[in-house]
């Protein structure tokens, strides 16, 4: 097994989910910024590029549906495929991840000699995954209140709409920050990864990358080999 230079990191389902998520979130963020900063040059430019104010809203809602579809695809994948199930169990947060984060930081700072041995999914991937899961839930609920306001008018008080709007706008900002400074940095911009890690297209990870970024998983693979 060690002769094999590459391992399957993401299967076709995962890659399709990633691309659907990427497309829908990018469109949501772009159209969302257009609305949030509609008075500024940036907002005006985005609204213009999105084909006007009405089209902006339509794209936003279309992308929201695409995102919801992706979420259900993902849930079905986790629940009903063996690989999905196994992968999900590996991305569940553990105390080790928080420890790994601090140890990595201490190692980077030179306070620790040893580099923590990271899992198949380490704190980098897990934080992203769970942050985006939380964001999707927050955005989904607050967005639904705003989208179906006609229905909710008979149920919710005005301040609930104000809060939904506030939460929706701020979470959007948070998503953007998370995307750029965490996700895009890790997979595109960080030295060694630039211009980008190709895993999301090929679905494969090289032995070198595995050893570098996920040492624990690398060792597990070596241990497993004799039993196969």
């Amino acid at each position, binding site marked *: 097994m060690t002769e094999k230079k590459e391992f399957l990191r993401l299967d076709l389902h995962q890659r399709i989910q990633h691309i659907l998520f990427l497309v829908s979130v990018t469109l949501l963020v772009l159209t969302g910024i257009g609305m949030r900063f509609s008075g500024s040059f940036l907002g005006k430019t985005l609204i213009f590029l999105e084909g006007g104010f009405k089209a902006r809203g339509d794209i936003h809602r279309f992308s929201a549906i695409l995102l919801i579809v992706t979420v259900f695809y993902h849930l079905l994948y986790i629940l009903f495929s063996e690989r999905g199930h196994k992968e999900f169990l590996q991305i569940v947060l553990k105390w080790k991840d928080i420890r790994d984060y601090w140890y990595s930081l201490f190692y980077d700072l030179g306070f620790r000699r040893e580099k923590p041995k990271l899992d198949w999914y380490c704190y980098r991937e897990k934080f992203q995954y769970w942050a985006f899961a939380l964001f999707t839930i927050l955005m989904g609920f607050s967005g639904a209140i705003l989208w179906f306001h006609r*229905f909710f*008018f008979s149920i919710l*008080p*005005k301040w609930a709409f*104000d809060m939904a709007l506030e939460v929706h706008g701020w979470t959007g900002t948070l998503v953007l920050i998370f995307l750029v400074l965490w996700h895009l940095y890790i997979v595109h911009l960080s030295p060694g990864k630039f211009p980008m890690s190709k895993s999301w297209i090929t679905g494969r990870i090289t032995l070198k990358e595995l050893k570098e970024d996920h040492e624990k998983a690398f060792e597990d693979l070596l241990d497993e080999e004799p039993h196969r």
Partner: protein
Amino acid sequence: MFGFIILPLFLINIALFSNQHCLECHKKVVILPEAHGKIKCTGCHGGIERLPHPKKLPDAGCGQCHAEEQASYEKGAHGYSLRQGNKAAPRCQDCHGEHEILPVEYSSSPVNRRNIPETCGKCHKEPLFAEKHGIPIRNPYELYSKSQHFKALKQGNMDAAVCTDCHGVHGILNSSQPDAPIFRRNIPETCSRCHKDEFEAFTRSIHWKAFIKGNTDAALCTDCHGEHAILSPSDTGSSVFPTEIPSTCISCHGDVRLTSRYGLPARRLETYRASYHGIVLKEGELTAAHCASCHGSHLILPSSDTLASTNPQNLIETCGKCHPGASANFVRGRIHVEPKKSVSPGVFYVRIFYTIFIGSLLFFFILHIIFDVRKRFRKV
């Protein structure tokens, strides 16, 4: 003795002057039969004792017959100006014409309703004229010619307001004179001559009530609608066109001097502009609620008034105009949302939480990037 004989002869001599005598010299003069056809030349032109008469004669005495108009004229700004020796001050003939005077009903009369704007405009379209005589509005004719009143007049609506309807006819007074129809306090009544329903609603509004209590800053008709260049609310350039209404209201309700003086609620425009209604209205969605959609237009009342559309009791109905599902539960919470603990606590805490959360997250992310970059470059 001779005097007794000469004087009657002299009087007879004058009485014997007929128009024929005048026309011998004044060949071009035509008296149209419609108005003054039966009046002799000497009926207007006094001071003719014998022929040929002196070159300089007194002004035509229109007031002999039109005493009321003459008295009114003398009270007005034009008459005053004439007495002050202003040669440019208009006299009867400047508006009515001289010999070819027609009754006002005739469409070619310069004082017929359809021609009044042009007649006044002869002088009041010239900015230099206004400057010379210290008239504050430099080109009222040009402004008026853009108005809905003018448009309607040109389309043949003879009820459309022309200059004289608001300013008066012979005794035109300027706006600083309490009797003037354009004196600030008299403006609503002046407009009410045509716009009765609006006046009736307006006089019950807080704007009017405040005004008669002495708040001369309170908005009257012209403050929102404009004066000469008044446009229909459906005209995109109108100050009361939906997209323009917020800036119209805010000229007073956003003025720090006025809001602090009268204790009006502040930050009305900012909070509106930040709301969904404000954003979509600005983007051209004309059905989006603006100030008047909730507060009313002519009959605006403070929300403390139980009759006000913005009174908590009436909010279900007011919001329900656009949002039929609005319930008693819905109308809880502020409409003008301010991220303050006392106004909109929910929004306030959400904002505080996110500000702190995003702030610390940014700190950690940037820290992470700095260390990561440092480490990797060190390795290479």
